[in-house]
């Protein structure tokens, strides 16, 4: 696999919060374009921090982060923000939505801030039509739902709206941080299948982080952050064994 095809490439990347011990120390992590990666780890293992690094919100203390062949640490803060808006979609554990916007406006948010996402969403018509298509693909097809207040939706519906938003404008990278942990077992499965189907449709790379190891087999690759991270006890053991 050449670098030109990698969605994500981490190289000797280290990160610590100010005044805290080293939290992340990753020798190498490469995710191919279109790959669906499951990254498991208990809470507090630095998962969210890693996603912040991939999203360009945080910058590493040392090492290399390339997302879509762009060296994120080399970009300025504003350029990283723009990069994130243009190329990365996020889904979080819960409370993903802006409470004062309708379902449709929540899904259209990325198009407000990124012209690239707006243009890509408009390839098959208006961005609103694309938003409706994504919602329908995720099982939220009723037209009446679009104008609804997001606070009236169930948690499962809210997560699907968040997924539709992350997918709008076909970002190359989709980062999901425990998006299913507030869903029950059946809804979890259904949500994942819909999300993956849509990622495949759009050709988006998916990085899915969860502590729920039962989901691992559904992905192309199943990685343990603890083993990957040399700053963690398990990572140190793995490094010694290797």
């Amino acid at each position: 696999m050449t670098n030109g095809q990698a969605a994500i490439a981490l190289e000797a990347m280290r990160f610590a919060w100010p005044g805290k011990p080293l939290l992340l120390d990753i020798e190498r992590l490469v995710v191919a374009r279109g790959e669906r990666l499951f990254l498991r780890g208990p809470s507090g293992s630095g998962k969210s921090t890693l996603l912040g690094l991939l999203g360009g919100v945080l910058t590493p203390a040392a090492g290399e982060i390339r997302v879509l062949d762009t060296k994120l640490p080399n970009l300025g803060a504003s350029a990283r923000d723009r990069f994130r808006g243009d190329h990365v979609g996020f889904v979080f554990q819960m409370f993903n939505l802006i409470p004062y916007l309708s379902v449709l406006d929540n899904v259209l948010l990325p198009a407000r801030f990124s012209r690239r996402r707006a243009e890509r969403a408009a390839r098959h018509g208006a961005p609103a039509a694309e938003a409706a298509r994504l919602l329908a693909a995720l099982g939220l097809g009723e037209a009446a739902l679009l104008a609804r207040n997001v606070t009236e939706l169930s948690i499962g519906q809210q997560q699907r709206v968040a997924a539709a938003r992350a997918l709008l404008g076909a970002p190359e990278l989709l980062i999901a941080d425990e998006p299913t942990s507030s869903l029950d077992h059946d809804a979890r499965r259904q949500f994942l299948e819909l999300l993956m189907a849509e990622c495949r449709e759009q050709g988006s790379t998916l990085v899915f982080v969860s502590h729920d190891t039962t989901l691992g087999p559904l992905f192309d690759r199943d990685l343990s952050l603890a083993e990957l991270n040399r700053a963690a006890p398990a990572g140190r053991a793995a490094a010694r064994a290797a």
Partner: protein
Amino acid sequence: MATLSLALRSLWNRRVTALLTVAAIAISVALLLGVQKMRVAAKDSFASTVSGVDLIVGARSGPINLLLYSVFRVGDATANVSWETYQKIARHPDVAWTIPLSLGDSHRGYRVLGTNADYFRHYRYAGKRELTFAAGKPFADLYDAVLGADVARQLGYRLGQQIVIAHGLGAVSFARHDDKPFRIVGILSRTGTPVDRTVHVSLEAITAIHIDWQSGVQALPGQRVSAEEARARDLTPDSITAFMVGMRSKVTTFTMQRAINEYRLEPLLAIIPGVALTQLWELVGVADTALMVVAAFVVLAGLLGMLTAILTSLNERRREMAILRSVGARARHVFSLLVVEAGLLATAGVGLGIVLTYGLMAAVRPLLADRYGIFVQLAGLNVYDLGILGAIIGAALLMGLLPAWRAYRNTLADGLTIRI
């Protein structure tokens, strides 16, 4: 534009707080604007008390004192002007007309002014408005009286009624000219000037009612002169309190003023009403400047209320900011979101304040004109008003920088991790 519509919807989501904030700003703006409008109206009303008069002449005292007793019917003259001197000036070739003023008596607290028909012919107020009669006509007979609008309304007088004039200026007087009652022959239309609070009679009438008085006391019953007997006497006054002068040409006003002020036979003072009014307003104006300062502080309090509301909302909105960041909002978007929010609140407050001001003014306008003779113009906002309103919005935007800066720093610290 992304931030403007977001700020609007975010505010709508917090509409109770937002509306209260807007209301607080609106009330403070209405107060400030109201004070400003009233100030202008009062000043205009003040300046328009007398117009078309080139000089006011009285015994030598201070200009403001002369203005007060001759125009505003406040205070007393310290001395009079002799009839000979008045006649001499009145007949001067440069003088077009004069209005003699003889003060000193009252009717139930309202001043009685002895004058002549020229008063109704030449007196002007509020630009070029003439005195007009709501009912009746100018005095013709010796014992005729013409009432100002307030006098007639407050005391409920009608044409044909008889009134008695009291000696001196007290509201309750024991020395009354009750042997020579007056008949009301005219009631003037409202002017919004002290004319409304004046009882007008002829100069001769003033002489007639004092014909048997000496040193403020009426003669003993046997030596009195009856009302009918008085008609037969020579009623030319010895002196008058003051007089107003209209010049044939404005150019000669200053020359005449100097000539009067330097008149050797009698100590006189001639003032130009406009100049003296300005001096007097500078004195009175301190109060309205103080009011303006108070109003400005109320606006500041309103804006501080807004700042408090925005700052307290910041913590509960950290999630909102993090979500916006995750969908590509830059830190400067978050910054501008809050500045725009402050601007929107202030703009809405100013807008509502303008509506409130004009609503209130329309409501109290008849009352002000009626009771206080202040004519408030419902004219649009002038450049000065707009400047004030612009400054308020500007101040709000400046204040918005504080929460914006805090949100900016929060959002950099929080990143995408959403804290509940």
